[in-house]
């Protein structure tokens, strides 16, 4: 017994919907002809292809398909899929880059359990910010890699991200334009570039 059996209104609605609409035979003929015409394209017509040639053709197409797929995977994995070949992006308009190299590192060290990433929490206090992300050498300073979540009261931002053990330099990117150090962390000078960064040391318990 379903609800429809008890409810006459619901039963009427179901009966209406079950009725088959009137058949337009011309429309059916048009659709069938179009489908038949579409099937007769060269690529779908195996009758005229020699078996051996067909085998080569299939191998060639599958190889090209594989190559294309692999290339797409390669580009996407590196976050390099750009639609328009935009010019260089600087600071605030940095194009997103992926952490693919980090993946390479993890793979290289995969045999070592101690080298596996460890979850690390970052907290940042800024009530006026609209968007905050953690940027550091662990995510190749990509502002889209670790976007922080705002607390319910609105002032505190936090993110938990996996980081490989060791010492890392990082900071916070506020509203995609302002690089800020972590006031709670030690600061270190980058001798190569003459700039400052915050330091975190990550280890496995």
């Amino acid at each position, binding site marked *: 017994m379903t609800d429809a059996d008890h409810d006459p209104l619901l039963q009427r609605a179901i009966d209406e919907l079950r009725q088959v609409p009137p058949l337009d035979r011309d429309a059916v003929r048009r659709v069938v002809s179009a489908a038949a015409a579409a099937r007769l394209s060269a690529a779908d017509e195996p009758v005229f292809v020699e078996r051996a040639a067909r085998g080569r053709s299939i191998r060639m197409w599958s190889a090209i398909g594989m190559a294309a797929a692999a290339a797409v995977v390669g580009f996407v994995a590196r976050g390099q899929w750009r639609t328009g070949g935009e010019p260089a992006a600087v600071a605030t308009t940095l194009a997103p880059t992926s952490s693919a190299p980090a993946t390479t590192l993890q793979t290289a*060290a995969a045999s070592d359990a101690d080298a596996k990433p460890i979850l690390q929490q970052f907290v940042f206090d800024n009530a006026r910010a609209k968007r905050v992300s953690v940027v550091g050498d662990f995510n190749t300073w990509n502002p889209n890699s670790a976007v922080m979540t705002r607390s319910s009261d609105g002032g505190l931002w936090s993110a938990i991200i996996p980081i490989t053990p*060791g010492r890392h330099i990082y900071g916070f990117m506020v509203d995609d334009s302002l690089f800020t150090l972590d006031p709670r962390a030690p600061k270190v000078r980058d001798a190569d570039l003459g700039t400052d960064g915050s330091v975190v*040391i990550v*280890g*496995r318990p």
Partner: protein
Amino acid sequence: MKSIARAGLGLIVLACANRVAAAQEISALVADREASAELAKIVATVRQNGLPLEPILAKVQYAVMVRSPAPRIVAAAHAVAARLEDARSALAPQPTATDIVAGENALWSGVSRKSLEEIRKVSPNKPVAVPLGVLAQLVVSSVPEKKATKYVTDLIKRGATSDQLVALGNDVNAEVKLGTRAMDALEVRMNRLNAVLGVPGANGDAASVPTSLQSGDGKKKP
């Protein structure tokens, strides 16, 4: 057989795509054509030498973010590449990529190659990323390198966990930030660790143990 060949082809194409992508990544980041070409060369060399690329890409990305001029970015990338090579040979024979990156970071922070070798010597078959990170941070916090190396190597010998090492580095940092002298902060923390790890020198290497460690209640961490 067919599927193996296909998989192989896929991998080759993927590798080529990644190579192109790394070069594109660099050129997209650095507008200056000459600098971009130079950086691509550095990346290619580092890759050929089997070194991790992440530190170079991270350095370039960071440099662009802080608006460093192109020549400085190239110089920084060269420096990173040289340090990676140095770190690998100092941490020989079989450093992991994580170890090499940590070694590069330590060299960047002013730790000498000799200290890297000493860390490797006491930890030949274990990852050294954390000890190197702590050592680097101690050196940055103004602990003399020789002493810092001695403390860290001693802790490794005594079986300090990665977490204990991290806590040491972070605690010293926190106290230095509050105005305590780095060496004083380190001594206090080492005494506490000594209490947890047991009497130093019990395993026969008392001579190498810093004096500050020669106290404590002898309790050994299970």
